[in-house]
């Protein structure tokens, strides 16, 4: 029985169109050339890279493909934006602003700048839905602020940040604005050329492209220090022989996303909404974490009270075993519980929106994608209440809840 995959914010499968576009560049007798080489093979690889750059630029709504730099992943793109901007503009000041709900690719880069290089970082709080307030940003700006970095949409709860407004504040203050667009690229339309955004990071494997490739949009004229030093690749902005198959895959994924977003997004959103309301109707004591409306259409983060998230993830993964019915497929989801993280740290995102610790431990993220079907939702709505019931039957907290009700 094929499992039902609801973890598309963690990673997505490579789409067939993407795989086919990449294959000629991976085949033993294929286009293995180095784009820096002047011979025909090299120039073929070069042309493929440039054509992919155009496709990435088109998805991001960027007029000039020269503003796109390929990186090895979303994390590298975020690091390049944050660390590269800090080093290039340290004459202006030592202050950066970000939010408490950013991905670790931004948070830990900021942490590194604070600890190792004497920068100061302000971490803006968010409201109970995970939104940064424009007024808080205005209040945090200083004459020595060199960069503001706020994500376009949150990976854990899907909350969409008011990027247009936040960027405009930075623009009028003359401060660079970076956005981690890893989760929103391919899910919501972006038109960066009309946005007050200077830097934006994306990742291949979050939009049905391969792993090992990302990109950073760098608005023309914005100076960054490079993270990697070596050859003159990517116009001296990112040294290292280009990942040609990866870049071709990212380009193909961007082209598919641009073509299908307007039909795919509402279809996925409809399924997500049916899953979310269905679970809330069928299971008592379920809470939504994140913004009810200003949210990615594929994501829902729910707390199942009195159940611990790691055990729920395991039990759903082996739903057939859990419910003693081999005909049932497994459900693949993720959790913000500390018990599921390698460091036993609960989700910093859910902490930042004020979810009590006990409820963070019971949080589960369902992130849908292109390959989900209405039948998946029917099956999930059948399986999940039964699995939650089973775990609650083991839970002393649930026992207490029942007593409270009486």
């Amino acid at each position, binding site marked *: 029985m094929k499992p039902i995959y609801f973890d598309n914010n963690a990673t997505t499968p490579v789409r067939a169109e993407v795989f086919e576009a990449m294959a000629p560049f991976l085949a033993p007798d294929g286009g293995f050339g180095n784009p820096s080489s002047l011979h025909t093979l090299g120039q073929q690889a070069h042309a493929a890279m440039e054509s992919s750059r155009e496709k990435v630029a088109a998805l991001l709504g960027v007029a000039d493909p020269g503003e796109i730099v390929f990186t090895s992943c979303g994390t590298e793109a975020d690091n390049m934006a944050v660390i590269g901007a800090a080093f290039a503009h340290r004459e202006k000041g030592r202050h950066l602003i970000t939010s408490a709900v950013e991905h670790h690719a931004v948070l830990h880069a900021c942490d590194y700048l604070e600890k190792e290089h004497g920068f100061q970082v302000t971490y803006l709080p968010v409201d109970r839905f995970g939104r940064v307030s424009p007024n808080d940003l205005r209040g945090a700006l200083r004459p020595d602020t060199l960069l503001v970095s706020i994500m376009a949409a949150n990976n854990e709860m899907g909350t969409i940040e008011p990027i247009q407004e936040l960027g405009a504040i930075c623009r009028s203050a003359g401060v660079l604005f970076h956005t981690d667009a890893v989760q929103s690229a391919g899910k919501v339309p972006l038109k960066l050329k009309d946005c007050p955004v200077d830097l934006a990071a994306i990742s291949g494997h979050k939009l049905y492209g391969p792993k090992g490739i990302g990109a950073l949009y760098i608005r023309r004229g914005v100076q960054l220090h490079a993270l990697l030093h070596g050859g003159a690749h990517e116009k001296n902005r990112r040294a290292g022989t280009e990942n040609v198959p990866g870049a071709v895959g990212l380009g193909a994924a961007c082209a598919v996303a641009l073509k299908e977003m307007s039909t795919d997004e509402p279809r996925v959103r409809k399924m997500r909404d049916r899953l979310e309301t269905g679970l809330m109707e069928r299971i008592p004591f379920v809470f939504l974490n994140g913004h009810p409306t200003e949210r990615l259409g594929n994501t829902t983060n729910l707390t199942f009270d009195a159940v611990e998230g790691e*055990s729920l993830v395991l039990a759903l993964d082996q739903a057939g075993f859990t419910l003693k019915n081999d005909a049932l497929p497994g459900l693949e989801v993720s959790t913000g519980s500390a*018990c599921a993280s390698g460091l036993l740290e609960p989700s910093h995102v859910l902490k930042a929106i004020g979810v009590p610790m006990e409820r963070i431990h019971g949080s589960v993220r369902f992130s849908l994608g292109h390959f989900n079907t209405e039948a998946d939702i029917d099956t999930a709505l059948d399986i999940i209440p039964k699995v939650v019931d089973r775990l609650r039957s083991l839970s*002393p*907290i649930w026992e207490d809840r029942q007593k409270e009700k009486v």
Partner: protein
Amino acid sequence: MYSPKVMDHFQNPRNVGDMPDADAVGKAGSPTCGDILRLYLKFENGRVSRATFKTFGCGAAIATSSILTEMVVGKTIPELKAITNVQVAKALGGLPPIKMHCSVLAEQALKSALEKR
């Protein structure tokens, strides 16, 4: 990540439930930390005759609770006092290093039951 034995005890937990006539009740953990174990013991002729549990926690916490209820049956109080978290983890075929604290939770619940007896 988990051994087959851990998964077996997680998916088929033994001796789940409350025990209204328990002779000893042990508690460990807190909801803030993400795990709570309640252990119930019934004694007959100085030995544990029945043990049950209820646990809120991760797969390892549920599995350690389950195996603990098997390990304690037939034991005298001095024998119960000698049970360590390492023995609990070993009985499950080992636990991932970051999950060893779940076996500590089991030992604490047992100790708490014996203290309150």
